[in-house]
């Protein structure tokens, strides 16, 4: 149940997937709002600090996710997925894994290169040191640009990724989305009927 099987995801993958997903969407929204001018300056300062704390949390989880992704097997796609779709999915997933790490690193670089030298005080608990980057306006501007660009590329990838999952669920009626919601119980890569049988079996055991 914790680990992935040949046909489905285990809880470790599922929980990491949705936690990181929520964090990334929240950070995109927070990042977008805090950068708007005309926002109350005290609120803006607070939002920046929340963004950094949640960003570090996202980075930590993304690193765990990547290690897990490297050491744990990846279930093969449902049989209904064509080779071209597999390639596209693989590319999207690889990109998301990389961006999940690179985007927060570029954010960390912004905080580190900034001439403001504002400490990163992770949820007001521990100080996370700056990356060893020279502090200058040029460097800060470069990393700000890189961070924003890559963050919005990540948003685009998330949108494609989510659209594909919804397409599979509602148009194709396959398991692509549902198997990221709860672990597959069976060993076979059967379709819906197989899942129904398992659900019934699990329900029976519960009593």
């Amino acid at each position, binding site marked *: 149940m914790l680990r992935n099987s040949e046909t489905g995801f285990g809880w470790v993958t599922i929980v990491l997937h949705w936690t990181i997903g929520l964090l990334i969407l929240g950070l995109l929204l927070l990042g977008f709002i805090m950068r708007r001018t005309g926002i*109350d*300056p*005290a609120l803006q*300062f607070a939002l920046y600090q929340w963004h950094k704390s949640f960003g570090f949390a996202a980075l930590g989880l993304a690193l765990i996710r990547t290690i897990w992704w490297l050491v744990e097997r990846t279930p093969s796609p449902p049989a209904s997925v064509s080779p071209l779709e597999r390639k596209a999915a693989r590319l999207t997933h690889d990109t998301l894994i990389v961006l999940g790490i690179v985007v927060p690193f570029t954010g960390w670089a912004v905080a580190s290169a900034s001439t*403001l*030298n504002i*400490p990163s*005080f992770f949820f007001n608990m521990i100080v996370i040191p700056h990356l060893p980057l020279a502090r200058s306006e040029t460097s800060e501007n470069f990393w700000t640009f890189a961070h924003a660009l890559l963050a919005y590329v990540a948003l685009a990838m998330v949108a494609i990724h989510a659209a594909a999952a919804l397409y599979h669920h509602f148009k194709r009626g396959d398991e692509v989305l549902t198997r990221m919601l709860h672990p597959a119980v069976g060993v076979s890569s059967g379709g819906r009927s197989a899942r129904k049988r398992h659900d019934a079996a699990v329900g029976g055991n519960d009593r």
Partner: protein
Amino acid sequence: MTITINSAVKATLYIAFVFSTSVAKAQAPALADAAGSYRIASSSSIQFSVGQVGGGGGIAGRFAKFSGGFRIDGANIERSSVEFTLYPESVRASERRVEDFLRSSAVFDAANFQTVTFRSTRVRQTGPATATVEGALTARGKTRKERFAVTLTDWNRRSISFTIRGSIRRSPYGMDVGTPIYSNVVEFNMRITGQRR
């Protein structure tokens, strides 16, 4: 005109200081000699700093525009008084973004509160050349009792200089933005020169 007088005074003070420090710490003048009314000279400096978590840097700045005066009571030093105004709009810091933030509604709210004022209520001599000054500090429309430590550093017939230090907690004035990353305590370090009126 004022500029030439100021720089002349500054030069005199500097020379006096260089000579006097090597011999002895500035000695307290006979009170009768120092008694009088003084205007705070623009050559004075009002610096402040706020520490940051993990050490290093913090926020440091100064105020370019201020005014005020003090009166030294010859008969009883404890009856001396000081009043002081500084203009947060004139705050200077390491860079523009910091200055704008300090002026903004997050800190001084300089648009709505043009001045920060101090009016002494009590002066207590603590040593031959030291005193504490207690008084009402008003910032952002809030007034509180604060205390500063004063040390005499130099004096002559026309002017007198002090260093003044104080640690002010900013939260009571509604300026606690940035805590706990930045300390709640602002350290003031002022070098005040008064010119006899």
